[in-house]
């Protein structure tokens, strides 16, 4: 079974600075998808960014980018120019490509990000 590990329960960053959240996963599959979701205090789960394992190019979405290292099974999230609104719990998630009728997300434990003004 796949597992996802986020080794940083809490992180903090100064406003306008850059922060990197770590995520590692364990799988024997070669095709899969990785996601970062954000959960602010409102508890809504918001998709931040996704990465297809078959793509070598790292995904970017505005101030958010990933460092995807397939051989190392590492998928870190970099937030540039941090804003107060970025404060939230961030979850790394894995999805297999093996199930064709809708697949479960396997989540990490989450990293609570604090942004200091």
């Amino acid at each position, binding site marked *: 079974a796949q597992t996802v590990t986020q080794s940083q329960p809490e992180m903090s960053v100064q406003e306008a600075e850059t922060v990197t959240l770590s995520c590692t996963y364990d799988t024997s599959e070669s095709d899969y*998808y990785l*996601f970062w*979701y954000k*959960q602010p205090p*409102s*508890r*809504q*789960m*918001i*998709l931040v960014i*996704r990465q*297809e394992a078959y793509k070598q190019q790292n995904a970017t979405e505005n101030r958010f980018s990933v460092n995807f290292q397939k051989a190392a099974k590492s998928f870190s999230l970099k937030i540039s120019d941090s804003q107060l609104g970025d404060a939230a*719990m961030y*979850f790394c998630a894995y*999805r297999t490509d093996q*199930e*064709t*009728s*809708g*697949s*479960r*997300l*396997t*989540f990490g*434990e*989450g990293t609570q990000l604090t942004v200091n003004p």
Partner: protein
Amino acid sequence: DTAVSQTPKYLVTQMGNDKSIKCEQNLGHDTMYWYKQDSKKFLKIMFSYNNKELIINETVPNRFSPKSPDKAHLNLHINSLELGDSAVYFCASSQVGGADTQYFGPGTRLTVL
């Protein structure tokens, strides 16, 4: 327009009661899910339905019964509620194929007293 909606957002009830949580999506997706987020914020899949057919059924007590009247709706009924059922329950939906990104509802915080 709300993409994935859940009702109610908060549910407080006594042990032993039966309750339901409703979920609706207007994204035209084929697949819907229920996830449970425990007190430590850990999220885990409970069920998945594809076109009204049960696809994923994790190790969940049979007091939990999902029902999908059509592919836009997936309800969760819980019988004989226990203290340990207190959690946030999220509904999600996705379109099969490609990245199959899942979009989540706002969650229902269930508190069992």
